[in-house]
């Protein structure tokens, strides 16, 4: 087993979180934030040194909203220190991705925990803006302004499965 997989499984045992292993280097799990529930996928590359963590947002972009949502996600991504949003134009799926290269070393469990937390916090924070565009006819600029004026976001979210 590669050392990233080892660390993931150790972290999940420590925190008593559930997960499914789907293939040798792929993990599937779920977390609830303040605003939604997120499916997570963790992929480890062939050399076992790079972890890509994806959080799937529960709302996706119907075709007629994809332009607006794309602009919103671009605005969200700009100046974002860690990770970025992606949207699949084929089906409107929206996800937040963080990729970390651990350089062949076993990740520190608390570091891994923070990576997962980052994914969850960002997804949960910006999900609201997507809802505002889809259901309240906000423009991308209005949605971003609402979301990013929402106070201190660096506080750790309460991770719940």
């Amino acid at each position, binding site marked *: 087993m590669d050392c990233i997989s080892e660390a993931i499984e150790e972290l999940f045992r420590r925190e008593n979180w559930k997960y499914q292993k789907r293939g040798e280097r792929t993990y599937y799990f779920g977390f609830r934030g303040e605003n939604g529930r997120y499916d997570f996928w963790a992929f480890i590359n062939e050399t076992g040194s790079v972890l890509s963590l994806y959080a799937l947002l529960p*709302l996706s972009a119907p075709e007629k909203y994809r332009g607006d949502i794309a602009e919103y996600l671009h605005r969200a991504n700009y100046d974002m220190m860690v990770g970025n949003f992606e949207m699949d134009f084929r089906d409107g799926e929206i996800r937040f991705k963080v990729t970390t290269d651990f350089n062949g070393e076993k990740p520190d469990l608390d570091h891994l925990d923070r990576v997962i937390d980052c994914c969850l916090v960002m997804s949960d924070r910006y999900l609201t803006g997507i*809802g505002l565009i889809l259901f309240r006819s906000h423009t991308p600029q209005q949605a971003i302004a609402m979301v990013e004026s929402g106070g201190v976001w660096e506080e750790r979210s309460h991770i719940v499965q």
Partner: protein
Amino acid sequence: MHPIAKALEALFEKHSWRYEKRDENYYDFTFNCDVNRFNLYALIGTYVNTLSIYVHMPFQVPATRMTEIAELISRINYNMTLGNYELDFHDGEILFKVSQSFSLHEPHPDEIMILLDCALTMAQTYFPTFGAVLYGGRSVTEAVQHG
């Protein structure tokens, strides 16, 4: 394998739909619809020979809005012929559920398709209604009238 499980798997295989079998009587699957992606699960009640299909609605109700959404769900459920919405007061999850009991023979996949179709149709129909209340600033009565 339980006859309902056989019929369910036959339906998935007929349409080349992907699914995850979590255990003998629990299946997870996902559909991409025009309005959103929906996660579903199917539970087989072996003792009473039932199939229940649940759709996870992609919303989470904050604690402060539970009563409001409970009212919305009550209004939506009223007069609904098949299936109903449920709200988990513990975590704010909204599910649509449709169940059917079958006699002891293996149901035809088309019988299962009816349930699945109902579940997806209802999820898509009321998706904008929930969105209108949770994000769109509409009152429950406005959202139900316009939905």
